[in-house]
C-alpha cells in the first residue's frame, strides 16, 4: 500500500504554500512587496530547488545550468510567437526541451566525475552560449534577442479566433492576463507545485539512492546499483527545473537574449543553494530569495545615495565611506556577490537552514525518527 505524504511533510507544504502566497504582505515592510521582485524570488527559487536535486542529493557540481535556463527561455518565447500566448503550453514545452538538452549534455558530462564533470558542464554551457550568441542566430537572434512582435504566427491563438490588435499581446493563462500580480501568483503556484514534486522525489527511493551515491558511489556498484542512469536522471530533472525557471522569466517579462546563458547564472544558483543549505528542501528557496533581495537593494544604491545616507558623518569621512562602499553597490553588485560567495564557502558551507536548525536544536532537542530528520546533514 503506497503511503501518502507524511503528515510532517504535509504541514511543511502547507506552511510553505501559505508563506509564498502571502509574500506580498509580509515582505512589504522590507520593501520587497512588489510583483517584479517577488516573481524573481519564486523563479530563482524554482531554479535553485531543481539544482539542489542534483548538487544537494548527489554531490555533482554542475556549472552549466545556465544553458538550460536559456533553453527554457527560448522555448517559451518561440511557443509564444508560433503557437499561443498561453503560458501553460509554454512552460511545459520549456521543461521538456530543457530536459532533452540536459539529457544530451548530461550523457557526456557524466562520463566523468568530480572536477572533470564540473569542467565539462561549464564547457558545454559556454558552447551553448557561443552558439546562441553567434551561430544559431536564426533561432536566437543572437545579441539582440527575441521579443514578441507584430506579425508573429500565433497559430493556436488565431485558430480560436484571436485577432491582432493595436498593442502586442501579453502572456496569459487561459484568458487571465499575466502581468503584474497575476504574474506573481502564477509563478507562486508553479513554485509550490515544483516544491511538492521535489519533496516527493527527496522522500522517494530515487532520493535515497541519490543520497547514497553521494555518500559512497563505488559501494553502490557493489550492492547492485548501476549508478550512471541515476545521476543522469538527477541531472535531467534539475535541467527541467532550470528550463521551467527560464520559461517563467519570459512569461513575466517577454524578452530573451543570449546573455541568459552566461555562466554567471550558473554560479549564482550554486551560491543560492549553498547559502540556503545544500541538500535541504527549503534552503535553496531561502537562498534564492536572500540573494535576489540583496541584489535588488544593493543595485538601487549608488555613491550619491550613500553619500546622503552617511551625511551625518563629517564631510571627508562621509565621502570616503561612500566611495569605498560605493564599490559594492550599484554596478558593483557583482563584486559583493563574489565576496559573499567566498565568505559563504569559507565559513558556512552548510547554509542558513542548517544554522537555523542548529539554533533550533540547541533550544529544543529533537530525536531523529527512523526516516531521519526532515532536513538532512550533507556528507561533507
Amino acid at each position, binding site marked *: 500500500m503506497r503511503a501518502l505524504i507524511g503528515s510532517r511533510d504535509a504541514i511543511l507544504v502547507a506552511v510553505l504554500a501559505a508563506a509564498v502566497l502571502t509574500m506580498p504582505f509580509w515582505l512589504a515592510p522590507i520593501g520587497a512587496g512588489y510583483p517584479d521582485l517577488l516573481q524573481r524570488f519564486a523563479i530563482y527559487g524554482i531554479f535553485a530547488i531543481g539544482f539542489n536535486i542534483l548538487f544537494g542529493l548527489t554531490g555533482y557540481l554542475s556549472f552549466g545550468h545556465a544553458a538550460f535556463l536559456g533553453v527554457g527561455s527560448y522555448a517559451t518565447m518561440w511557443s509564444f510567437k508560433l503557437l499561443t500566448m498561453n503560458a501553460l503550453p509554454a512552460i511545459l514545452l520549456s521543461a521538456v526541451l530543457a530536459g532533452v538538452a540536459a539529457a544530451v549534455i548530461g550523457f557526456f558530462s557524466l562520463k566523468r566525475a568530480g572536477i572533470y564533470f564540473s569542467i565539462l558542464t561549464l564547457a558545454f554551457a559556454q*558552447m551553448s552560449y557561443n552558439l546562441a550568441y553567434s551561430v544559431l542566430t536564426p533561432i536566437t537572434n543572437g545579441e539582440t534577442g527575441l521579443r514578441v512582435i507584430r506579425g508573429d504566427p500565433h497559430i493556436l491563438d488565431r485558430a480560436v479566433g484571436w485577432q491582432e490588435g493595436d498593442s502586442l499581446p501579453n502572456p496569459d493563462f487561459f484568458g487571465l492576463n499575466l502581468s503584474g500580480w497575476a504574474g506573481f501568483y502564477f509563478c507562486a503556484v508553479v513554485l509550490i507545485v515544483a516544491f511538492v514534486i521535489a519533496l516527493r522525489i527527496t522522500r522517494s527511493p530515487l532520493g535515497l539512492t541519490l543520497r547514497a551515491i553521494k555518500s559512497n558511489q563505488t559501494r553502490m556498484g557493489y550492492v547492485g546499483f548501476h549508478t550512471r542512469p541515476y545521476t543522469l536522471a538527477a541531472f535531467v530533472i534539475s535541467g527541467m527545473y532550470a528550463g521551467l525557471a527560464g520559461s517563467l522569466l519570459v512569461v513575466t517579462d517577454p524578452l530573451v537574449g543570449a546573455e541568459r546563458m552566461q555562466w554567471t547564472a550558473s554560479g549564482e544558483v550554486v551560491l543560492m543553494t549553498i547559502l540556503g543549505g545544500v541538500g535541504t528542501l527549503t534552503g535553496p528557496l531561502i537562498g534564492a530569495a536572500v540573494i535576489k533581495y540583496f541584489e535588488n537593494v544593493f543595485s538601487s544604491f549608488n555613491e550619491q545615495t550613500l553619500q546622503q545616507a552617511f551625511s551625518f558623518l563629517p564631510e571627508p569621512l562621509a565621502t570616503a565611506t561612500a566611495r569605498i562602499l560605493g564599490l559594492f553597490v550599484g554596478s558593483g553588485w557583482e563584486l559583493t556577490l563574489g565576496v559573499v560567495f*567566498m565568505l559563504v564557502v569559507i565559513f558556512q558551507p552548510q547554509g542558513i537552514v542548517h544554522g537555523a536548525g542548529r539554533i533550533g536544536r540547541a533550544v529544543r532537542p529533537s530525536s531523529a525518527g527512523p526516516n531521519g530528520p526532515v532536513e538532512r546533514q550533507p556528507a561533507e
Partner: protein
Amino acid sequence: MLDAIVLQILNGLDKGSAYALIALGLTLVFGTLGLVNFAHGALFMLGAFCAVAFQNLLTLSTKVKDPSVTFFDAYKDEPYLKTWFGDAGQTIIDYSAPLSLILTIPVMLAIGLVMERSLVRFFYRRSHAEQILVTFGLAIVLQEIVKAVFGANPIPVPAPPAFAGTADIGTWIGLGSGIVYPWWRLIYFGFSIAVIAGVFSFLRFTTYGMVVRAGMRDRETVGLLGIDIDRRFAVVFGLAAVVAGSAGAIYAPIVSPDYHLGMEFLVLSFVVVVVGGMGSLAGAVLAGFLLGILQSFASMNEVKEIIPGIDQVILYLAAVVVLLVRPRGLLGRAGLMES
C-alpha cells in the same frame, strides 16, 4: 594552399601559446597541490593589467605647452619620461609591454604568495567542489576590482614600434613572400617556449624542482620525509601565478586587456588541461598548442562555409571527443578521475 596552412598554424600558435602557459600553471597547481584553481584565468588577466598599469606609470604626464598650436596657448600631455630623457624616454615608453615584466613578475609573485598563504592553503584538504567555489568567487572579486579600477573598456597596450609590423615569414622558410605574420605574435610564441623551457628545467634540474615533482607524485610521503612541503607549495603557487601573469602581460599587445579576459581564457584552459591529461605538464603544453592550432583552422573561411560556427564550438567538441576516446587525455596518467 600550403601558404594557407602555414598561416593558420602560425595563427594558432599565439593563442595556443597563451593556452599552453595558462594550462601549465593550472596543471602545476593541480598536480602538486591537488588544488583546482578557478581563479587562474584571473591571474592571467591581472598580469595583462600589470602591463596596463606599467604603461600608465610610464606615461604619467604633465601638461606641456603645445608648440604646434600658435594662436592660443594650448597644452598637451607629455609623459615625464619624455621630458626628462627625451628620445630615450620615448623608447622606454614604446617598450612598455615587454618591460612591464619588471613590474609583472614581482607583483604576480606577491599576489600568488598572498593568495596561497591567506586563502588557498586552507582548502588543500577540502573537497574539489569547495576549492572550485571559493576560487570562483575570488575570480569574480578580482575581475570586479579590475573593472572598478580600470573601467570596463579594453585598454590598448601597443607593441613596441619595432615589432608592431609583420614579419615576412614566407621568405624565411622559402615559400615566397605571401606569408606575413605579426612580429609580436612570433615573439609571444618564442617567449612562451622560453618560459615553458624554464619551468621544465627548474623542475628537472634543481633539487627544489625535484622535490616539487616528487610532491606531485605523492604528496603525503614527501611530507613524511620531513620536508617542509607547505613552504614549497607557496612557492609553487607563486611560480604558477608568475607564469600566468607574465603570459598575460606579454599578451597585452595582441588582445587589449579587459576585465573579462580571465573568464574567457579560464574555461578554455580547463578544456586544454582535460585534453592534455590532468596532472601532466607536458600534456598541458602540448594540448595548448594543438588546440590553438585547431581553433585557428576552424576559423578559416573555407571551413566555416562547410560547418558554420564551428570555430565557436570546436574546442569543446575536441574535449568531448577526447574524453570519449581516451579519457586520460593525451598524456595523462590512467585511472585519474574516471567516473
